[in-house]
């Protein structure tokens, strides 16, 4: 790893670790290896959003050319959000692409991701299915996102009805995660979700 990249990550790591956001359990960064090329991030779901109460883990890869190029970041925790792929966790965020600037830090990135959770941009989607639901059936989107926060990010249990639908499909022999994806995609219509999985 280039010297400047490693030096910066070491300093940034300290900066994030001692920041106020950490003591407030808002953001967190951990080392994965001692070469500083890969880190594990975590952000708390923002209050008054469908992600509230959830902890979202992130994979952060530091390129050799950091900070001249942005870190590569994706969600490890599954999440239902228009700008984050529900399949791969890939993120659509301009500062992680062409709006990156060398003065930005891991802390900037984590706080920006938190802001993205609070304010989705459905017109620049990463996940077309989620974005369509966000725009056309927002109440269902909110319930679905909250349900995913509970199922994958340790968020509070809230929606018995959705949980029961997942269980009913599990009892039909479907894999739990696949059932949840199908139900989420088909606006929680069990018949259509089952058809979707069989076809």
């Amino acid at each position, binding site marked *: 790893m280039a010297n*400047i990249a490693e*030096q*910066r990550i070491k*300093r*940034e790591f300290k900066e994030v670790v001692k920041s106020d956001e950490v003591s407030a359990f808002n953001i967190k960064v951990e080392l994965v290896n001692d070469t500083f090329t890969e880190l594990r991030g975590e952000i708390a779901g923002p209050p008054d959003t469908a992600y509230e109460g959830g902890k979202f883990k992130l994979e952060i890869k530091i390129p050799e050319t950091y*900070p*001249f*190029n942005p870190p590569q970041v994706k969600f490890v925790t599954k999440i239902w959000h228009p*700008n984050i792929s529900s399949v791969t966790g890939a*993120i*659509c*965020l*301009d500062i992680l*692409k*062409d709006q990156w*600037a*060398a*003065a*930005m830090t891991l802390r900037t990135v984590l706080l*920006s991701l938190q*802001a*993205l959770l609070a*304010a989705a*941009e459905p017109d*620049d*989607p*990463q996940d077309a299915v989620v974005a369509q639901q966000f725009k056309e059936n927002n109440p269902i989107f909110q319930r679905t996102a909250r349900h995913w926060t509970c199922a994958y990010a340790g968020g509070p249990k809230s929606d018995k009805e959705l949980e029961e639908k997942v269980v009913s499909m599990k009892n039909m022999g479907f894999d739990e995660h696949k059932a949840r994806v199908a139900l989420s995609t088909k606006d929680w219509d069990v018949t259509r979700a089952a058809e979707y999985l069989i076809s």
Partner: protein
Amino acid sequence: MGNCFKSSSNDDISLLRGNDHHDPALEPAPFVEPPPPYRPQQRMPIFHPSPGVSRPANQLTEDEQIKIAQRLGLINHLPTGKYDGTNKKAKECVICMNEFVFGDELRYLPCMHCYHRECIDDWLMRSFTCPSCMEPVDAALLTTYQTS
């Protein structure tokens, strides 16, 4: 925020089109250092003709070589200096996050942000904006030419 479905290959170097021949008489006084002759193999082995594109010098198209030569010329018009501790506001280079020490070679951008020369030159070859305030450097430079 997100803009994945937009083209990410918009070439910021193309901002320099047309306006790149400088009348030396119009150049402001601090920019006394003339641009060095363009020697890609000696100066920098890898170039970034547009964002996200990295190629060794011998694989650049003629167009890209011209753009890079122009960019190098513009960068060399930006004032430089040695850190002497008189500027109390500039304490560290936000690119490498190291504190300035006496004698460090600095480069000043038109927005008055300053960095290690080595750090900022590397950045400016990729993106011609100030990494702190996002001010486009070439726009400011061209304005300087017009008003001086």
